[in-house]
């Protein structure tokens, strides 16, 4: 049994034994947990990945005459000002109003940490005590009073890996997912990751001193969505002391902006139990691969895997080898664990015990929603359909008589085989084409189902630039039709 005070005394004396989490696996394998606990005082961990739930509080100081900022932008990226006059919180995923996904809150933070100046622009309604209504100026990290990084959810213990069963390329927060299970992506660094090395959160809790973005920071509680073993941490640190190498702005193409954050946590080896915990290896850390091809909250699980399998670069799905991309940097994570080790060895970093433990059990609840509106509630049913054998003229007549623009084409069993629109007919007429509906219909029809949420149906229409979807049942029989007008009436509310 060792205490953190004893370990800190060793740090002061310069004879502390610190190893990285990767080195610890080998030491425990060789000496056993009991001996390893005597030998080793501290195990350092590290992680470096995209952490969207990050940002910083700023206090800009007062202008003359003073302003109570109602809205504020840094390089055109808006920060939240619903707090005191010149305080604001800039979130990393907020996009620039002029550059969109190319530049966001994360880029502002990286620029500031690199020593650059950014433009501050603020507006206000004006009061007796804060008469100014507008200000534009330049600021750097030196100019502001405080710049405190506060990240509500960082350092995910483990994360669900992603794949895509659909026939389109998907651009997601899990990176680019190729169609038909073309690849798998995963986040986190498994056995090197802080929380996996202290799964009962004995030494990582409120008040634990950590390495955050190249400076010292603190755990201030469990993170949002904390749900062991998918644990998370809320952390804070002084942005003014951080280094750009460990805070890197990124854009996940088609998804948005995020920040790669470097976090390292030292774990005191208090006893044999802690030695055992820090010996955890990737083959013991499990997660699941989920299917992003299904755009719902509860995405189906494709497969259970361990981090060892993911790290191998290949996993088998439906009998085929699928290539795997990590999204967190192992190289940087290792570098952080090593840097933290050096800081402790040089006596620059002392350990703390948590003043309060974070929950070891907690469930992550879904959002309470009034209702999930589905296609069934807005579709026109039954749909007016036509046979492929019918003439183009006949189709034109039905469209006009019913004042509609889309006509699903069904065979004698009522199964959907195509669609004709008034535009198809206009084109056919303009080209002097006479014939049957099947000569001009579109055969690859984008469809929806009765139970599909209307937001998903709307996104399908938007993506394919179409304005109606036939509604089919499980046998591909047409049961109705839904148009973009039907949906916009509901979505706009």
């Amino acid at each position, binding site marked *: 049994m060792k205490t953190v005070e004893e370990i800190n005394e060793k740090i002061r004396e310069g004879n502390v034994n610190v190893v990285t989490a990767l080195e610890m696996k080998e030491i425990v394998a060789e000496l056993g947990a009991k001996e390893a606990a005597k030998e080793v005082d501290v195990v350092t961990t590290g992680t470096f990945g995209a952490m969207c739930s990050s940002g910083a509080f700023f206090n800009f100081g007062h202008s003359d005459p003073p302003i109570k900022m109602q809205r504020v932008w840094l390089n055109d990226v808006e920060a939240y000002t619903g707090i005191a006059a010149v305080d604001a919180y800039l979130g990393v995923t907020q996009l620039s109003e002029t550059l969109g996904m190319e530049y966001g809150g994360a880029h502002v933070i990286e620029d500031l940490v690199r020593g650059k100046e950014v433009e501050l622009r603020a507006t206000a309604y004006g009061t007796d005590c804060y008469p100014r209504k507008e200000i534009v100026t330049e600021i750097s990290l030196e100019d502001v009073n405080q710049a405190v990084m506060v990240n509500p959810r960082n350092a995910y213990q483990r994360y669900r890996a992603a794949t895509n069963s659909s026939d389109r390329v998907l651009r997601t927060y899990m*990176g*680019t997912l190729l169609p038909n299970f073309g*690849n798998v992506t995963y986040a986190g660094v498994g056995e090197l990751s802080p929380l996996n090395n202290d799964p009962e959160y004995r030494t990582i809790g409120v008040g634990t001193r950590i390495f955050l973005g190249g400076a010292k920071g603190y755990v201030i509680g469990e993170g949002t969505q904390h749900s062991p073993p998918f644990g998370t941490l809320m952390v804070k640190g002084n942005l003014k002391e951080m280094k750009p190498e460990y805070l890197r702005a990124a854009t996940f193409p088609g998804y948005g902006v995020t920040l*790669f954050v470097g976090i390292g946590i030292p774990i005191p080896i208090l006893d044999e139990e802690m030695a055992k915990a820090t010996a955890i290896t990737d083959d013991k850390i499990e997660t699941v691969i989920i299917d992003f091809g299904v755009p719902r909250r509860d995405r189906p699980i494709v497969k259970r895997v361990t981090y060892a399998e993911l790290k191998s670069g290949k996993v088998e799905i439906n009998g085929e080898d699928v*290539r*795997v991309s990590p*999204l967190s*940097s192992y190289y940087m994570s290792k570098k952080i664990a090593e840097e933290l080790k050096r800081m402790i060895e040089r006596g620059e970093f002392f350990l703390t015990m948590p003043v309060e433990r974070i929950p070891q059990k907690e469930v992550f609840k879904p959002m309470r929603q009034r209702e999930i509106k589905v296609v069934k509630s807005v579709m026109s049913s039954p749909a007016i359909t036509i046979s492929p054998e019918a003439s183009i003229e006949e189709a034109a007549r039905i469209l006009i008589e019913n004042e509609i623009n889309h006509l699903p084409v069904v065979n004698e069993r009522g199964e959907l085989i195509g669609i004709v629109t008034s535009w198809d007919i206009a084109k056919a007429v303009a080209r002097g084409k006479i014939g049957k509906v099947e000569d001009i219909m579109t055969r690859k029809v984008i469809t929806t189902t009765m139970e599909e949420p209307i937001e998903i149906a709307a996104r399908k229409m938007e993506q394919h630039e179409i304005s109606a979807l036939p509604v089919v049942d499980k046998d591909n029989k047409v049961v109705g039709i839904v148009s973009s007008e039907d949906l916009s009436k509901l979505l706009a509310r």
Partner: protein
Amino acid sequence: MLLKLKYDSRSVRAPVISKVAIEENALINIIEAKVEPRFGEIVVEVDDEIAERVAEKFKKYGVEVRKLTKSIEKSEKCVDCGACISVCPTGVFERGEDDRIVVNEVKCIRCGFCVGVCPLNALKLPE
């Protein structure tokens, strides 16, 4: 070797690739093509040994030829995350010994897909 062919309004109307393939008895693999009524840009792959000969023939038929020797370039912006590994069709990116992401340039067919995938905007295809 990869050759970038630039067609003008005249050459774009002639079946130049077929002519060169037949006359030079060469296998020509089309990697990328953008053909419009008055202009065309096609990237083809041919064996290194016959590249010179094939290039000359294209020029004879009024097509501008540039050899694409440069493959994908990774800048120092890279954070070694590995997001590019699984999207490259030919496996150019690999995790090296020290966990850095290494680029095996010779495998690159210049499809350009990885350029739009890297979150750090660290990948570029030089002309």
